[in-house]
């Protein structure tokens, strides 16, 4: 019975394949530098995963996921920055013991809201709670007033723009446009050398699978079905007596928390956080990852994120001056030809053939592998 709570058989296979790919294949075939790049790509996979729930199932398009990615990332970065700004590391400053950018901006004491970030426990709690509460506030303000669709997307974009301006403007407290650089250790453990990168990679993959499980659970629960029903016909759900707003707020919050976890992972893996992940452009890019992967498919979103980022890196390495055109072409091609993204290609073309192959091999029907239930095809 618990199987049904999380996944059916073909989903289980899909998750196992992804696990083998991420845990065995990539670490064995890539050098540490490339593996660290994959770790960076996977931080966006958290965001894409959240968008599958929020946009794919719930039908709430958020163009401001960068906000939550940024909040999570900044929380983590503040902790790491404080640790990197010990008195002996910052002797050269006029006020030793505070982050370097504060010193440049003539701030002479650690601001009060920075102080709790000396504690790792507080930081971890903040990574989840700050974006979660923020999303709850936005969600409540919007959905309770029945603001949805395009208007909601525009408002999330505005929030992304506002947060960027705030971070850039308050550079004494946030590092401004430079962001927080030169993050070094986590509780005394150096996050920069190669072996640390490998450990962080596996840690991140572990967290990703926890999030995948949560997403699978939501999808297979009653809650997931209500989300889909809402997407398809909101009024009917409302008239059936459900509080549509609360379900929407929930989907939005969970997407926000996933994005924040991704942001925190980003700060850890890349050793860096800057406002360039908070604004409108990165937020839209995150939606594109989901669209390329297939917004209805949990695993598709992860492959989509990996594919787009891999294309971005390799195209920009090969054609430093023209690569953006190639990337743009890829998006247009995918969206025009395959509206359901990679998962759509899989579900429409690959999966049926595999099923037929299996069916033709087996003479007698097998209840466990009934192909009509098999679900690489994302649509419910």
């Amino acid at each position, binding site marked *: 019975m618990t199987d049904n709570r999380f996944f059916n058989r073909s989903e289980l296979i899909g998750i196992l394949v992804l696990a083998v790919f991420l845990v065995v294949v990539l670490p064995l075939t890539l050098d540490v530098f490339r593996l660290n790049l994959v770790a960076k790509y996977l931080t966006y996979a958290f965001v894409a995963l959240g968008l599958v729930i929020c946009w794919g199932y719930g039908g709430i398009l958020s163009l401001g996921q960068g906000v939550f990615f940024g909040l999570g990332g900044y929380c983590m970065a503040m902790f790491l920055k404080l640790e990197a700004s010990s008195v002996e590391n910052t002797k050269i400053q006029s006020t030793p013991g505070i982050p370097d950018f504060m010193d440049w901006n003539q701030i002479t004491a650690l601001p009060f809201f920075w102080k709790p970030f000396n504690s790792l426990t507080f930081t971890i709690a903040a990574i989840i709670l700050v974006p979660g509460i923020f999303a709850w506030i936005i969600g409540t303000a919007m959905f309770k007033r029945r603001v949805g669709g395009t208007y909601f997307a525009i408002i999330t974009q505005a929030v992304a723009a506002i947060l960027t301006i705030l971070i850039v*403007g308050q550079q004494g407290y946030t590092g401004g446009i*430079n*962001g927080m650089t030169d993050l070094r250790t986590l509780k005394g453990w150096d996050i920069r050398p190669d072996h640390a990168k490998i450990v962080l990679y596996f840690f991140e993959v572990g967290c990703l699978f926890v999030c995948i499980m949560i997403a699978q659970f939501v999808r297979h629960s009653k809650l997931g079905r209500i989300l889909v029903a809402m997407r398809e016909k909101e009024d009917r759900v409302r008239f059936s007596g459900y509080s549509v707003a609360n379900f929407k707020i929930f989907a939005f919050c969970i997407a926000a928390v996933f994005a924040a976890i991704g942001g925190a992972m980003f700060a850890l893996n890349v050793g860096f956080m800057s406002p360039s992940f908070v604004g409108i452009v990165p937020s839209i890019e995150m939606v594109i990852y989901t669209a390329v992967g297939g917004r209805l498919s949990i695993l598709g979103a992860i492959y989509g994120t990996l594919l787009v980022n891999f294309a971005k890196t390799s195209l920009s390495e090969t054609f430093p001056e023209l690569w953006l055109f190639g990337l743009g072409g890829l998006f247009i091609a995918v969206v025009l030809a395959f509206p359901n993204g990679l998962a759509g290609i899989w579900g429409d073309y690959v999966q049926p053939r595999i099923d037929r192959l299996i069916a033709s091999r087996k003479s007698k029907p097998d209840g466990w592998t009934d192909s009509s239930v098999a679900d690489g095809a994302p649509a419910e």
Partner: protein
Amino acid sequence: MSDEANKGLLSPLRRKLLMGMAAVPAITMLPRASFAQAPATSAVNTTGLAVTDTEVTVGILHSATGTMAISETGSIEAEKLAIEQINAMGGVLGRKIKFIQEDGASDWPTFAEKAKKLLVNDKVAAIMGCWTSASRKAVLPVMEQYNGMLYYPTFYEGLEQSKNVIYTGQEATQQILAGLNWIAKEKGAKTFFFIGSDYIWPRTSNKIARKHVENVLKGKVVGEEYYALGSTQFNSVINKIKLTKPDVIFTDVVGGSNVAFYKQLKAAGIDLAKQPLLTISVTEDEIDGIGGENIAGAYACMKYFQSLDNPNNKAFVPAFKKAWGEKTVIGDVTQAAYLGPWLWKLTVEKAGSFDVDKIAAASPGVEFKGAPEGYVRIHENHHLWSKTRVGRAKLDGQFELIYETADLVEPDPFPKGYQ
């Protein structure tokens, strides 16, 4: 192989062919022999950099796309030109320079990622790159962790010094102090109004400028305003300028905002021929966008102007235009970027090695007499000794040199009394 050849019965033709084949290695040895003084790779490269007997690889890391591309393209062009010229002269330690270009895409973490790729995967011997302070701050930990060598071209705020970076642009005091001294003396200026873009470089520069105005020139700063990057509305600050009537407007507004700023200044009736304005952020590149008619009469404080009249520059400007087109203009940073490959070559030759540690140690004292700006020398703190110059913008978008310091100005990235 030759053993087998001796055993078999060979026709004369086959024997000739085999002899010919045996000669092939000898021929390929020739170019190596012709660089009689080129030292063995094992001697000049002990840390596994991308150096072969005939080639050495360096990285070029700038934004070719995104908002910064317009500024960084000049630097890319200058670095490529310098590399081409060095290769035409025989390269470095008998090796041709090959470059790998990466795109930072105006995105600071991308800069860090690409820097790491260049150092870890490509093992480049040096990187010419970065432009904004933000990109440098992102790349710096990577350079230090993997022990790379960065030649950074932009004038910047100072407060930094690294074994792994050579700063070929000016740090803040080199750019600001002499210019303020000059304008205070020349125009008898006592009151200053500061306007800047809101990020670390203008803020730090204005902090230094304020201390200098108040403590050294005994003048007064009557206003200090900052605008977000990309701002285009300067009317309120222009009104404040009209009210406070400062002797000098001192600006470090960057990028596209300049276009709006100078146009609005002109529209508000402030005539730069009568109202002295000193900028540390407008070069020939920016005037291209602002338009000479909107900024003519303003003073800029730089170390290089395209119009400089010296033999080095007279050779450099035509060479640059020949390579990149008659219409290109050369700003301060472009010239500083051009210095990067040359300084690296001279340092490698001084050190007799491509090893980063040896280059870092050999850098202080390296002098480049062929610099378009005249003559430069690397200081112990890895910045350059260079002159400060003030130019007046003309209608045609060029600067007319008005003043230059008699001597080279010492770089001082951590100025005492200015922090």
